[in-house]
């Protein structure tokens, strides 16, 4: 088991011939990810990664030829929104978009379209997902992970690595580690990932790493309180972040006032989540949570 991806995932890389795409596709392949095709418009018929992977002009074509069900996108921001829509209409079930800097108005439209099509999207502006020893999609360093029973979900990239590193040093391995991305509009939220972990028999505990801004951690925490049987350890980054650097007046009204680190930490605690005051406590607290289970 595990969540989102596993060794049976059949993966397309959109933007495989670009410098980012080819570099990370190579690393993913080395990790053992089952990459079946690449897509770069205009380069159909060629091959990528030293001849290992066939390249197609469109996702539709690649899917037809290889029966792929997952796609990962390394496409520049001006074209990434279309790349997601293309994969969604081609019937790809799960899309991971690494690209940083996609215009928000584009993503707002993308989100509506993938919801209508029933496609699951991770990202954009995210480090991706690793199901340990089975499938790595994205830019996370694979070697820091260790197979085990802790699920990790985070808004951030390097903070996820930090958490994984602490878990490993505390003797704890992971099932799946996921960076959901920090953009205002993203495909899959924390609550959804927690639902998947709750239903995954291999996962015994979850580490949830959030930050200031938005309401996602709070929605996730409320879901945990009502539905989650497994222990959750939480950390919120940004206790010292200066207020008002992001929020306009109108935005603050829509999102309410509970988006500071203090407010989120308080609500997480109220919902029964074991909250780390310091980032350095993630490993130890998770170990404690599993021992007390």
């Amino acid at each position, binding site marked *: 088991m595990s969540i989102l991806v596993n060794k049976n995932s059949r993966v397309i890389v959109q933007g495989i011939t670009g410098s980012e795409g080819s570099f990370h596709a190579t690393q993913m392949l080395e990790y053992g990810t089952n990459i079946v095709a690449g897509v770069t418009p205009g380069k159909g018929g060629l091959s990528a990664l030293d001849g290992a992977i066939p390249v197609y002009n469109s996702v539709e074509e690649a899917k037809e030829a290889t029966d792929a069900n997952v796609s990962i996108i390394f496409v520049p921001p001006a074209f990434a929104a279309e790349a997601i829509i293309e994969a969604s209409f081609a019937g790809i079930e799960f899309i991971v978009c690494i690209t940083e800097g996609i215009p928000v108005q584009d993503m707002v439209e993308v989100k509506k379209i993938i919801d209508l099509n029933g496609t699951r999207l991770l990202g954009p502006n995210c480090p991706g997902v690793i199901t340990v020893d089975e499938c790595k999609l994205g830019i996370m360093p694979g070697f820091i992970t260790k197979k085990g029973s802790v699920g990790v979900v985070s808004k951030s990239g390097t903070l996820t690595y930090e958490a994984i590193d602490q878990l490993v040093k505390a003797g704890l391995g992971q099932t799946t580690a996921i960076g959901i991305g920090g953009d205002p509009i993203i495909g899959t939220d924390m609550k959804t990932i927690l639902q998947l972990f709750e239903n995954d028999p291999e996962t015994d505990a979850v580490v949830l790493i959030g930050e200031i801004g938005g*309401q996602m951690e709070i929605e996730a925490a409320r879901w945990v309180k009502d539905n989650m049987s497994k222990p959750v350890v939480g950390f919120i980054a940004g206790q010292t972040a200066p207020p008002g650097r992001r929020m306009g*007046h109108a*935005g603050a009204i829509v999102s309410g006032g509970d988006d500071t680190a203090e407010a989120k930490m308080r609500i997480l605690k109220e919902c029964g989540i074991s909250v780390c005051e310091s980032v350095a406590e993630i490993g130890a607290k998770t170990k404690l949570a599993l021992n007390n289970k």
Partner: protein
Amino acid sequence: MKIHEFQGKALLKKYKVPIQDGFVINCIEDAEATIKKVQDTFNTEAVVVKAQIHAGGRGKGGGVKYSPNFESAMENSKNILGMNLVTHQTGPTGQLVRKVYITEALDIKHEYYCALTLDRARGDHVFMVSTEGGMDIETVAAETPEKISKVWIDPLIGMKSFQARNLAYGLELEGAALKTAIKVFMNMYNCYHETDASMVEINPLVLTEDDKIVALDAKFNFDDNSLYRQKEISDMQDLHEEDATEVEAGKYNLNYIKLDGNVGCMVNGAGLAMATMDIIKLSGGEPANFLDVGGTANADTVKNGFKIILQDQNVKAVLINIFGGIVRCDRVATGVIQAVKELKLSVPVVVRLEGTNAIEAKKLLEDSGVSIIPAVSMKDAAEKVVKAAIG
């Protein structure tokens, strides 16, 4: 990215939203001619003199003055242009007023509030209006939420006229004003959508004594990710309104925000950077900055990072915290050593490198002979840098 009121109003005017119009001066020598031009063009004796800075609260801070005649307009222009305007949004240091907007004065019957932004949770745009214009909208939302009307706009459908009508009815408008307001709301949405704005706020939108609907102010925020396709908007950026060090950091592709403490930090990744600031505070120190060096931490980024951090005279020690994923720690270490040598750093530097090739990196730092304090975990690093800052 933010713009000035006069720029926002120029955009609204382009989208056929009626505005309280005027002209801008950059130097006091232009005041006399410009005031006369405003009086002639808009057929008015009275004008309003308005400081142009990005922060809100200009009126309360003394940066907006009604001027009944030419003499008072001259007097107010002299006082406001070049003043250091302090508002609740500028902080105690205030902001120098480099531009003054001289506009027509209007007789106001009623003030309204209207704004468009993204509702992140729903993934729709939300258009809000209120009968309580000119006030702090957060107060209205908290105390009298029934005075705010909202419609949500599906981005795949766009704004429909029934939604604009519902907003106008929400403001209890009638007759010609009702019709104008409906057009204004539709045009405002088009402006918001086509310019990739993340927020448009008109506060107040007014009904004049002669029943015209006019935008008295205009506040815009734009999505930075979209500026590549919004040349007209990105050309409006006023670098004077940004922190000079933050602008310089942007040129190096570094994301920097200055804070008030004395412990500098340099980190890869925004989340880890915030967590590093937090743990500095928890260890008894105060972070001097947020600095995310991004995915490619090499010798140049480290060097540039030091240059940026050390422009702040308060910084007494620097913590470098890099989690090497794709970034190799030995390369970062080489960069740190090179930068410390070249810049002849006088402040203590604590370095914590973890991840790819961390062991090789530690050896490089130890063998380099430069005075760097190595640390093994975030807690260790934070405690060491706080101690070093105390001296």
